[in-house]
């Protein structure tokens, strides 16, 4: 492999890894928002 390819590949791996973790955090946040919305609608039903 050419040196430049290796350097670009190493940087791409690092950015993809961190990006992947950010995507995981975003997905988890979306799931938490859904769970919270379900709880809120259940609470509203009980209040109503």
């Amino acid at each position, binding site marked *: 492999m050419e040196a430049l390819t290796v350097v670009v590949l190493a940087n791409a791996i690092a950015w993809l*890894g961190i990006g992947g*973790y950010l995507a995981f955090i975003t997905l988890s946040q979306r799931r938490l928002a859904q769970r919270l919305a379900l*709880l809120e609608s259940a609470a509203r039903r009980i209040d109503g």
Partner: protein
Amino acid sequence: MPPSPRHIPTGSALAAAGGLALAASQWLVFRHAPVEATMGLTQKIFYIHLPLAWWALASFLVVFAGSILFLLRRNPATDAWCRAACEIGVLLSGLALLTGMLWGRQAWGVWWTWDPRLTTTLVMWFVYAGYLVLRGLDMPAPRKRVACAVLGIAAFCDVPLVFLSARLWRSIHPAVFASKGGGLEPEMKLAVIACTLSMGLLWAGLLALRTGQIAQEERIETLEGLAGQDD
């Protein structure tokens, strides 16, 4: 500091600032720092590999300190910091291993060798990956927190070995700052410092973001438990 969902916007801002700073420091890496005489362009991997490895070790130090604090005070908030720090540590050390393998292929002609630094790092990665597996097990939360805290303390035994392995044993892995001055040109040193600080900002952001999210998750779980009791 007790984690709360309020950490999420702070963490997002820190992570964004860190990401931008890390992207900007690439200018120092590719334009300002000279090409190393022996390794050539391949040496540039060092500017991403070193910050990844150092902040992974910092994450495990947080797990260690947090685990001791948890066992002393039994505060679930401390446990949330440990969980987030371990996830980030496993991610960063995994990325450091992968970027190191690319370096190794170019510098030593092999993807992997059972060198003391590489071996202790791989062992560390597996031990902390095991910690995350333990986190995922279905067991009562208080018991799981204690088990994780004990493992978080025991696992740290390998971290000083990783750091000192290149100095203690005959290792082919370069010990960057072992000799006085580190053998780095001032421009290279500036690029390393910029990349390390930027990665630190990103690390702090990710840690705050994930810890805030874990705090939110635990609150929702408590509410779901209460709602379940009402039904």
